[in-house]
């Protein structure tokens, strides 16, 4: 098809504002799929596809509308995948910006709208859910028009649920979204905007052909990573997989690469043909690095091999997941894993627990630090226990947080940000009621319980999004926890000097409650280097005897003793001190920390 008949677009929306329903309705209206099959065909259907043994997920769907080829490109739903979202948007010329008529603009709407604007996309504003009784389409239309600098009369008003106005949306895509502008005769260049892994076919790349064309069996190369492979199969989803033999400039489709390692193809990289390679890749490739790290340990140490296999499998589909073995004296064998952000971490944890049926302990997350030892080169530190004792400088990642909140909660949210070492950046009224705040904050301050705090201080009304803006120096120290004089690796943390005392105190108090009394006094200390900043003592037991023991008691006492012995065997030995695993769990567990 010639490029002037092609339109490539995404749908951007806050969660629950109706993105999936609108996508369903578009497929239905274009007869891509019968309505009763809808649920099985939609874009996010990982479970079903897995059950069928086909793990290729439709990341883009091609439909026909009035003689035009429309490619709907899916975008990952969350902040942690900002970079992936931006690549998906780069593959498009336009975007539907969908806002709930009752809820109005949310932080995620803003973040994605800005991304779309940055990518020079034509934005088609849509107010959805106009059928809801509490809907205020006019107010939402004004808000969204203000946001993108458009006229409210241009805003489409629809109900994806009832189908009202959806045909107008398709018409608007054809009318308003620009045609692709690549050169069909230039050396081929295709942008990889997503990839997945199929156990039979290997890595599947989702691409937007920008210039030139690819054909089946053509030798291809990823320009940034240099990976070479042959295009085993080319095609598109409509929404079923259809082999097409070629992909032409302006089109969106998939390339089956046969590669066995998902990390050899990166989102954002450019594919070109080995026969007539392009001289320059498409702009914008970034090597995304994990920013949030946590230790993952099987609750039952026998499950370690299962955890290793599960991570290996997840990694096949998730190029951003990083892991390496980690051994903790307290928790045994596990892995230190790196994630793009908190949601990414939650997704991985949930998949490990749900899909692989593993019982996991996830340690409190920390961020990546850049550390300069005296007379040494900068190194990156992913775990507090790797932090050198002597450091000249430490840098931590910062984010720009974007928060939308009703005006009556602005004070509380600002206070939270100040507590978290935030630097105020900007305040703007989106409407009479709602305020958009931006702050610069250390990522470390949001990884623990920021989101919960934000929700509770705004009575649930605040929405939040963030973007990593780089590393900045911080007054950071490593706090160690010592039990009976022995440092406990899993409990070390890197923290701002000003919070070290409070957190150290909280940690030792918690441990004192959790460590049972021993045959001797046990000191529990928090220390920065050699300086102890908090101390508690678990007093020695004064008696531990089976009071009387005569003929009839012997078996019972022996069994009691055996039980006591078995209990001791389950304890972890820290120096001379016996610590139940539960004590570490209580202190380390993310959920428990959120409460403290």
């Amino acid at each position, binding site marked *: 098809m010639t490029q002037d008949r092609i339109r490539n677009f995404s749908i951007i929306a806050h969660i629950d504002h109706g993105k999936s329903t609108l996508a369903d309705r578009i497929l239905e209206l274009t007869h891509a799929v019968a309505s009763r099959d809808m649920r099985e065909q939609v874009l996010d259907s990982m479970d079903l596809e897995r059950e069928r043994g086909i793990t290729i997920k439709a990341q883009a769907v091609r439909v026909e509308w009035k003689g035009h080829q429309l490619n709907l490109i899916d975008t990952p739903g969350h902040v942690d995948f900002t970079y992936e979202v931006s690549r998906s948007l780069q593959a498009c010329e336009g975007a539907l910006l969908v806002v709930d008529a009752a809820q109005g603009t949310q932080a995620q709407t803003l973040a994605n709208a800005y991304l779309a604007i940055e990518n020079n996309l034509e934005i088609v504003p849509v107010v959805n859910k106009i059928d809801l009784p509490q809907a205020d389409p006019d107010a939402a239309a004004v808000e969204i028009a203000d946001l993108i600098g458009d006229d409210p009369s241009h805003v489409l008003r629809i109900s994806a649920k009832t189908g009202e106005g959806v045909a107008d949306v398709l018409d608007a895509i054809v009318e308003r979204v620009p045609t692709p502008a690549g050169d069909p005769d230039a050396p081929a260049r295709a942008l990889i905007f997503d990839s997945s892994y199929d156990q039979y076919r290997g890595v599947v790349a989702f691409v937007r052909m920008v210039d030139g064309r690819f054909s089946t069996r053509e030798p291809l190369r990823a320009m940034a990573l240099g990976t070479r492979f042959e295009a085993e199969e080319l095609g598109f989803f409509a929404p079923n997989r259809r082999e097409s033999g070629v992909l032409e400039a302006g089109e969106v489709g998939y390339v089956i690469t046969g590669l066995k390692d998902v990390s050899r193809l990166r989102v954002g990289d450019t594919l070109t043909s080995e026969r007539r390679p392009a001289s320059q890749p498409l702009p914008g490739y970034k090597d995304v690095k994990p920013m949030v790290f946590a230790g993952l340990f099987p609750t039952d140490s026998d499950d370690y091999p299962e955890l290793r296999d599960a991570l290996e499998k997840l990694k096949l589909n998730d190029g951003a997941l990083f892991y390496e073995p980690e051994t903790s004296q307290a928790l045994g064998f596990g892995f230190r894993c790196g994630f793009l952000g908190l949601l990414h971490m939650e997704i991985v944890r949930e998949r490990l627990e749900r899909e692989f049926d593993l019982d996991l302990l996830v340690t409190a997350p920390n961020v990546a630090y850049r550390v300069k030892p005296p007379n040494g080169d900068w190194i990156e530190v992913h775990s507090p226990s790797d932090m050198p004792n002597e450091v000249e400088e430490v840098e931590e990642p910062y984010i720009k947080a974007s928060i939308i909140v009703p005006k009556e909660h602005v004070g509380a949210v600002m206070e939270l940000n100040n507590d978290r070492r935030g630097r105020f950046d900007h305040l703007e009224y989106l409407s009479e009621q709602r305020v958009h705040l931006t702050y610069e904050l250390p990522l470390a301050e949001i990884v623990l319980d920021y989101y919960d705090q934000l929700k509770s201080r705004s009575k649930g009304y605040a929405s939040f999004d963030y973007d990593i803006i780089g590393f900045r120096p911080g007054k950071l120290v490593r706090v160690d926890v010592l039990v009976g004089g022995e440092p406990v690796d899993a409990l070390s943390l890197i923290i701002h000097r000003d919070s070290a005392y409070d957190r150290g105190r909280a940690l030792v108090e918690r441990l004192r409650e959790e460590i049972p009394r021993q*045959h001797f006094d046990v000191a529990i200390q928090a220390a920065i280097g050699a300086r102890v900043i908090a101390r508690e003592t678990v007093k020695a*037991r004064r008696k531990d*005897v089976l*009071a*009387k023991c005569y*003929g009839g008691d012997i078996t019972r006492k022996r069994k009691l003793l055996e039980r006591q012995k078995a209990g001791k065997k389950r304890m972890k030995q820290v120096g001379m001190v016996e610590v139940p695993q539960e004590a570490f769990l209580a202190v380390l567990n993310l959920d428990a920390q959120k409460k403290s």
Partner: protein
Amino acid sequence: MSSGARHLYVHLPFCAHRCGYCDFVTVVGRHSQHARYVDALLTELELERNVLAPELETVFLGGGTPTFTEHAELERLLGSLPPATEITVEANPETVTQELARMLRSQGVNRVSLGVQSFRLHLLDVLERVVQPDIVRRAFYHLRDAGFDNISFDLIYGIPGQTASDLDADLADALELGPEHLSCYELEAKPGTRFTHAHGDELERQADAMESYFELVVERLTAAGYRWYETANFCRTSELDLRSRHNLAYWLGRDYLALGVGAVSTFAGRRWRNTPRLAHYLEALGRETTPEREVEPLSHDVRRRERVMLGLRLDEPLVLGELAAVVDESAVSRLELLGLVQSDADGRTLALTPRGRFLGGGVTADLLA
């Protein structure tokens, strides 16, 4: 193996009242059954005669309240038991009359273990004991008058509401009478019992304060010249060995035969427990058949572990020998470092230090391999 058990225990389950904290097999009242029960005991003795050695070292009548048994029946029983070097009868103070004391003496009993528990009226109330403090003293003198020169007191500490000075006063009262032997037990409030239901919360509140009571008992009694020869047992030091020879047999891992309802015997690698149900017991022995029993085979390994567990309760070093196989050597050195355990130069014996004895449960759990 030994040619026969040299220690005999006889259980007399009858009591005037079942105390809330008691977990022994007891039966309230039932005077009409006392004669039948003694018959049953003697029948069981006949059935098990081959288990016993020709000469016994000890006989111990425990309960229940042995001295609550109809005195004529008790006398008949004592008259029919084989002779032994040490014959002990447990008695509750309120049952000890001049006549009873004389009868016991005339039947060869040479040691009485008196269930004193406390001299404090308010604490005896909590324990549901129907005794007045002075009755204890009266009982003690009746026994002395009848010629008993080996009397033991049972005391209980850790009673709900008991202060440290209450305990101090109990110990002082006991010491004033000067028994040859004292057994001091911490009250065990078993989960689910009536007693725990009534007093559990109070015990919880007092737990911290009571932690020092065991030390207080040991301190007071050793200061008064008593030997702390077993975790919960003390005896006067004299040229005579006043330790309970019968109980020592348990702690040294010897075989023993036990007769009566719910009674536990250990002999030749087996431990068995008679049915705890009086009717079943009486019925079986009425037919001159062995009562229902729960049998536990004791492996060599288990026996060795028991010998370590029991032996470490004593003040004399445990001679390891073949027991070394069930002791964790690294635990020994760790616990020696902590001052809880002592072994001799060539590691042939093992003993707990005084502090180790206060922590005997946990220390023993550490020591066992």
